[in-house]
């Protein structure tokens, strides 16, 4: 059982993460894991495992609404998901068996990629249009399956949702409309996180009280973020958090090299 102050800080952090996720569209995991490691001093494996369980909560809440609105492409989701879940299980098994510093460094590089792509998106004046491709060739489907497996692997290894890879492949490679791609990815993220979580829970790694504090904070945070969405400028929020993520990525990488 964690001290009450740590639980309170997790709750506050989760509120902020939920708020930012709703405004910027980035997943919770890429913010929760560095917050737990760098600010609260959690062990990297505990942070990854706890984040994965919290991700199930957020993605399930979002996916339930998307399923009700019938904007989830079930065929695409269920075609890609088994291989993604296998990736997540393998990723989680890798994380439980390699030294924490390697996980930290890997997470640092993933965050570096996410922050730089967020920066690029925030600095771009016009949003790029995704071309609908209609019929998808078997090569594209194969690439989509491979990228999905890789997204699952990263999700299981680093406690992130993997939406950053899933949405582009569904919109770009498989020709789904962006709204459907986001909804389908949201449904898939919960299942992928389940695959990884089963591995961590079977080894007793997640901290149950931390999961409770995170889950209870992240949902009201996302609700507040969605309500303030029209008043805030998503581009500015995205820019600010891309810089924070970049800082977190650099700190993680440098901490492995014992520079910080």
């Amino acid at each position, binding site marked *: *059982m964690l001290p*009450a102050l740590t*639980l309170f800080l997790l709750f506050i952090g989760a509120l902020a993460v939920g708020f930012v996720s709703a405004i910027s569209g980035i997943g919770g995991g890429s913010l929760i894991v560095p917050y737990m490691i760098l600010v609260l001093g959690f062990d990297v494996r505990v942070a990854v495992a706890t984040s994965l*369980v919290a991700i*199930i*909560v957020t*993605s*399930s*809440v979002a*996916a*339930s*609404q998307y*399923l*009700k609105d019938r904007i989830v492409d*079930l*065929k695409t989701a*269920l*075609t890609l*998901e*088994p291989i993604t*879940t*296998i990736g997540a*299980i393998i990723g989680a098994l890798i994380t439980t068996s390699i030294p924490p510093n390697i996980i930290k460094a890997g997470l640092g590089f993933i965050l570096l990629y996410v922050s730089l792509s967020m920066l690029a998106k925030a600095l771009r004046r016009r949003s790029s249009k995704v071309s609908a491709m209609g019929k998808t060739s078997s090569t594209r489907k194969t690439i989509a399956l491979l990228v999905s497996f890789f997204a699952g692997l990263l999700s299981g290894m680093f406690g992130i949702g993997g939406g950053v890879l899933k949405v582009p492949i569904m919109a770009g490679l498989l020709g789904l409309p962006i709204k459907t791609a986001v909804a389908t990815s949201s449904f898939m993220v*919960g*299942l992928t*996180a*389940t*695959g990884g*979580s*089963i*591995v961590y*829970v*079977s080894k007793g790694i*997640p901290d*149950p*009280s931390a*999961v*409770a*504090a995170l*889950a*209870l904070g992240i*949902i009201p945070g996302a609700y507040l973020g969605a309500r303030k969405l029209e008043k805030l400028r998503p581009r500015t929020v995205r820019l600010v958090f891309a810089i924070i993520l970049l800082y977190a990525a650099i700190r993680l990488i440098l901490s492995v090299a014992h520079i910080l």
Partner: protein
Amino acid sequence: MRCDLVREYHVLRYGVIIGLIILVVGLILSLFTKINIVLWIGIYVIISTPITSVMFIFLRNLVKGNNTIAVLALIEVLVVVFYILIAIHVL
């Protein structure tokens, strides 16, 4: 036969709500009595929610005769069940 009475989004929404309620009860219990078992039950409920919704997708599509989606949903369930069986066997 009414197969639309309980839909997959009901399972996702209420599964997570029930899991969160159990987590809150578990957190309070854990703060005062150091008993963690309720927290773990909450975690198990949350983890089993998405895969339960896929089971509902499988059953609903099987009843409707939409075999493609039913088979794909079944494969997803089998992947998770297969790993659980391996984990139980190994651990």
